[in-house]
């Protein structure tokens, strides 16, 4: 170990880091932490499966003489059932819960927490990093799978557009929610899965009130409204769905920032 020089190195030491700079720095670190070959490969394979099956469904249905309306419905149902119910929440959960949750669990959060920065940029960076990775893994299979399942009949563009909006806004909302979950619970992935299976999978079947409290209903509303398909269950107005998803995202980030302020860091 060298003896430090009497004068510190010629650096101009600032004492505070602005919000934009802090967000960019935290984003750079977190995105490298959450991306791993295994995660991308496994979740990419899931998306590829959806696309391939969508193509099989589309080509078989048209060969079997399916009506255009039926194929639009099949495509939208497929994008909803596979994309919005499975891929979007689970992919978002894997990356968002890991962004701050893993850092908290393994003790590396201190390297971003004990800094002259406010907390909001850290929460925002975690959500941004999660969305950056999740978005292509969610949107591409949902849009392509749904679109291919329609076999490009007239009106299939609406299915693709609806899938795009629903998958994108759904991914953002789920990511923000699960970033918060990563700060609230140890083993956030388990609690997130429990939420997806029990609440979004089972409880929504119990009534309209339960469905109003699940993100899935709002995401599928975007798909149903834009594709002009009745997917069953409750659908809301398009504007309502967009506002609710945006509000959930924003509220989750605010709560995550508040949680970071009061968090006990190891």
């Amino acid at each position: 170990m060298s003896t430090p020089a009497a004068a510190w190195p010629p650096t101009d030491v600032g004492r505070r880091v602005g919000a934009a700079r802090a967000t960019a720095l935290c984003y750079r670190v977190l995105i490298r932490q959450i991306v791993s070959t295994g995660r991308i490969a496994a979740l990419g394979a899931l998306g590829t499966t959806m696309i391939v099956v969508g193509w099989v469904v589309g080509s078989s249905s048209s060969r079997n003489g399916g009506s255009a309306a039926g194929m639009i419905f099949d495509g939208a149902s497929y994008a909803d059932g596979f994309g919005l119910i499975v891929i979007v929440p689970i992919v978002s959960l894997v990356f968002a819960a890991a962004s701050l949750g893993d850092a908290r669990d393994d003790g590396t959060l201190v390297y971003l927490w004990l800094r002259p920065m406010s907390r909001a940029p850290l929460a925002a960076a975690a959500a941004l990093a999660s969305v950056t990775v999740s978005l292509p893994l969610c949107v591409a299979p949902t849009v392509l799978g749904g679109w291919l399942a329609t076999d490009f009949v007239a009106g299939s563009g609406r299915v693709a557009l609806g899938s795009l909006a629903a998958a994108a806004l759904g991914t953002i909302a789920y990511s923000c929610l699960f970033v918060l979950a990563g700060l609230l619970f140890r083993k956030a992935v388990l609690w997130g899965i429990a939420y997806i299976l029990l609440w979004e999978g089972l409880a929504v079947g119990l009534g309209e009130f339960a469905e109003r409290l699940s993100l899935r209903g709002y995401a599928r509303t975007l798909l149903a409204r834009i594709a002009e398909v009745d997917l069953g269950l409750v659908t809301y107005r398009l504007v309502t769905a967009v506002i609710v998803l945006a509000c959930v995202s924003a509220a989750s980030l605010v709560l995550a920032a508040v949680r970071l302020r009061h968090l006990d860091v190891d």
Partner: protein
Amino acid sequence: MVEVHGVSKIFGDVVAVSDVTFAVRPGVTALLGPNGAGKSTLFRMMCGLTSPSRGSVRVLGADARQDRGVRGRIGLSSQQDALFDRLDALDFVQVAAETHGVADPIDAARWALELVELNPDDPRPVSGYSKGMRQRTKLAAALVHNPDVLILDEPLNGLDPLQRRRMIEMLEDLGAQGRCVLVSSHVLEEVALLGSRILVIAQGRLVASGDYRELREMMDDRPHQVSIEADKPRSLAAALVESGTAVGVRVEGGAVVADTLDADRLGREIAPLARRLDARLRTVLPLDDDLESVFRYLVERR
């Protein structure tokens, strides 16, 4: 620079830190205590990583949990072994510099890594580093923003003897520059080398603070042991007891091990006594003026 006043920290049913009060000034101060004594919890409270259940902790006059400015003036090397494992050392330290607002982060990171004798151009991610290299990487990240208060939790873990000696020299230099350097350890020899100012914590309570040699002197109710090598050990032993300088003696090989309640008196009288017996003194060595005996006495009362 660091003031801890009436601080307690309670986790459920466990009292990790109990009513601790002390102040730390510039220079090196060692926080000594067995594993689980509450050292890391105290450090976490100083850094604002957790808030005290009772009392207050001020670093540079503010609470690091609330004050962004103060957080920028603290350098922490935590006990956690985890680093951002996908980054190489230069990236890791550079991120630390950037998040502290250092204007020239790459140069600062290179300088800090060279300071701890790591190669800034090593392309390996830190996940491939040995324990000692990870420890030094953490230290570089703690130093890179020129902190006023440096808090190092068990920083010598995993270092080889040579690295330990150099690290200790470096910490002494940092303290001499007017920084407040707080170092925790449960290894007594380390703390003895680090400096004379210690805070001893056991079972969550502060049991002693100050210069450990002075502390040793304050413990007059317990005999000191002094080893005296001389060529007439049995005669010397008898004379020490007869004069009342020693309350107990034993002869081990060519040396007399004397228990005394007044080490200063023994030091003054041993030479005239030897001359009177025509004995040649070779060494007079206090056996228990080391930190371990202080620590054992304070913590275990024996």
